[in-house]
């Protein structure tokens, strides 16, 4: 199953106040069952917007008239290069701008975290009338600007360096498919601009212990020449951390979790198959110590072929 598609669905689901999680879980094609062919490079810009009015203070859902609606606008560049047909390298780099519609706090902006992935298609066989593929994906992300994590909920990121490992299975039968994946994210501690802070007890350090995270993703839908349309569901949970106390502000090492559902599509331009449009929308159905965000993203991607041999229709997907 060689795909030289802009493999799908760039889904940089950026939610304010948990951006880092997203960095590792959802940029370009690190979470779908498609690969770039050897020497092909797919690259393009994405823009997105997400916002929330309600958030979970611990498990208590509330709004906050001193924040109003908190939004994040993001622009990113993403790419995917086929080292071989079975080994791809991917990257993503978002610029984020946050804003609160009420209250006095000033929104933040800046380049967030550069994320890199190595995606390996380890197995692919016909099983029954469909095809099963197994993937192993390793990721790393790190901040590329000196933004402030300790200014939630308006921070543009959480500043930790994240190392992630993901196992993923994809099954396609005809034009229909399902993909499931599980990810473990090792997060580094972060340094904040203070010499003491309170979590559930006092800490005399500028270093904050960040709990690791687990994430699950399920996606299913239609995938064929020129068009992908899929529904998604995912969950991300920190493995530790503490709840925001009553009427307190969030803190980077809070216990955070979120469950979202969404829809993605990718459409190859008939007049120029190397060019494609992608978009997604999502909403949050459950969470803890996070905003209940909804949002959308859109992007345009182009495939450059660096392979030496001449091929026609090189950008068409092949199943």
């Amino acid at each position, binding site marked *: 199953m060689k795909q030289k598609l802009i493999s799908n669905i760039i889904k940089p689901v950026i939610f304010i106040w948990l951006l880092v999680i997203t960095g590792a879980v959802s940029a370009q094609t690190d979470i779908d069952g498609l690969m770039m062919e050897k020497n092909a490079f797919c690259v393009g810009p994405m823009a997105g917007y997400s916002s929330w009015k309600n958030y979970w203070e611990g498990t208590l859902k509330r709004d906050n*008239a*001193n924040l109003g609606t908190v939004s994040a606008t993001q622009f990113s560049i993403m790419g995917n290069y086929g080292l*071989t047909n079975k*080994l791809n390298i991917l990257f993503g780099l978002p610029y984020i701008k946050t804003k609160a519609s*009420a*209250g*006095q*706090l*000033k*929104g933040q902006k800046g380049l967030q975290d550069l994320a890199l992935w*190595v995606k*390996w298609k*380890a197995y692919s066989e016909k099983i029954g009338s469909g095809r099963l593929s197994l993937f*192993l994906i*390793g990721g790393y992300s790190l901040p590329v600007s*000196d933004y*402030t994590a*300790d*200014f939630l909920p308006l921070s543009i990121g959480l500043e930790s360096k994240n*190392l992630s*490992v993901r196992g993923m299975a994809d099954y396609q039968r005809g034009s229909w498919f399902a993909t499931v994946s599980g990810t473990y994210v*090792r997060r*580094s*501690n972060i340094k*904040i*601009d*203070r*010499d*003491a*802070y*309170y979590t559930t*007890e*006092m*800490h*005399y*350090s500028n*270093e*904050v*212990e*960040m709990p690791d995270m687990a994430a699950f993703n399920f996606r299913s839908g239609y995938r064929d020449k020129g068009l992908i349309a899929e529904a998604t569901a995912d969950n991300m949970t920190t493995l530790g951390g503490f709840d925001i*106390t*009553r*009427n*307190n*502000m969030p803190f980077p090492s809070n216990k955070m979790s979120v469950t979202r559902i969404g829809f993605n599509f990718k459409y190859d331009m008939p007049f120029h198959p190397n060019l494609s449009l992608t978009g997604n929308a999502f909403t949050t159905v459950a969470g803890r110590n996070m905003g209940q965000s909804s949002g959308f993203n859109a992007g345009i991607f182009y495939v450059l072929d660096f392979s030496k041999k001449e091929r026609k229709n090189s950008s068409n997907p092949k199943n």
Partner: protein
Amino acid sequence: MKKLHISIIFAVSVLFYSCSKDITETNLEYPVLDPASQDLNAGTWRPILLTGPAEFSVPAPISTTSPDYIIQLNEIKSYQANITSKERKIVNYWGAGAVLRWNEILRELVALHNLPPYQNPDGTYPVPSPNNPLAYPQFPFANPPYAARAYAYVAAAQYDALVATWHYKTLFNRSAPYNVDQSLNTLLPKSNIPSYPSEDAALIGVTTELLKLLFPGDQEFIQQKAEEHKKARILSGANVRSDLEAGEALGRSIAQKYITRARGDRAGAAVGTPAQWAQLENDCIARGEAPWMSLESPKRPPMLPLFGRVRTFLFDSLTMVTSIRPPAPPSTSSQQFKDETNEVLYYSQNPTTERMKIVHFWADGVSTFTPPGHWNLIAANDFVKQRFSEVRWARNMALLNMSLMDAAIACWDAKFVYYNPRPSQADPRIKTLTGLPNFPSYISGHSTFSGAAARILGHIIRSRANDYDNMANEASISRLYGAIHYRSDCEQGLITGRKIGDYAIARARTDGAE
């Protein structure tokens, strides 16, 4: 290719588990206290509220040759016989200094309680009640004025308790158990200072009594710390049981004197009434100035508007009005006010990484130990290096914290006498880089606290005076960088704070400790 895959997997797994996430906490790195001087004359130092060091009596101790004393020595031995590594840690933790550790505990309680109450459904705000401290909103809301007062009462009472303790130590001159029985293990540095009554226990007695008043919902936590502290003293071989009992009783008695003062210092009425809140606004309008308004939604009454009337420690209320209260701020209709507002707007719209770091380092907002707590941390980190005796630790912490409390009172006096609006009220384009406090702008609390603290600390440790001044200046300007204060607020705050620090220096020069 396969090899590459395997190496990648291997490298990833090593990275995953190689680095520990444990963090080093600076307060757990403090060395055990081995005082440079025992300050054996401290019984003659001038107390703060006590009429003299012997105002509360302490019974004469039993002799070190009596059978009861031998029993108490055996208690130490039985504790030490089964000592665990965890217990050794506890001995060393408390061995770093008892004034230090109780100051930390107080900072922790302040941070826990420094949360503004959530509004009622009708848009009013509930007020925490000391009579029902565990109901929401929990008592207290340990905001900066409340915290400054708590630090001051605890520190001043600790100082008086240790002056009295030192008086009785030299009076009775009973040796420490490790000097009585040379075979006893001693887990802390030995000294020749008499051990009856125990200074650690005096601190336990005086501090727990005051903390029960100030943090009535946290008594279990406080009691646990007290029990652990006492156990550490027995385990270490530094005190017998009767040293502790005498010290704790003395501390408790002295606490009562401070509790009586606290109940009558007018802090309990500092929240004010709706009629008083309206009066402040109307008075300001009558002077022809634009009055402060809450920018919170729903509008929150100002924080402790009558705190400026609380009884000060270092000077009287007349002195505060005549010698300390700053001049009126620039009129809200003046060109200077417009210029200063524009300057705040500039900092709001042009944050730099460097300025953001300064804003956040000094912010000490919600859920922190407040600016007075920050200055206590700065002091503690430096005092540890000075190897002060416990009584000198207490004296220096008392001087610092009386300065900080009086700074809070003088600052709140100015805030509510002038009732000056915040920059964001004057120009709604001004968005802030840290939380906007819910009380008038002039003068800056951070600046007043920092000016006072830097002055007295610079007197206590002369070699650091310039550093403290630089820290105070940075703390002060951080509020302009954060776009929540005008330059005048910061400058006048520093000036006012320094005046208060000078009153503390005047006291320090005459208290017998220098």
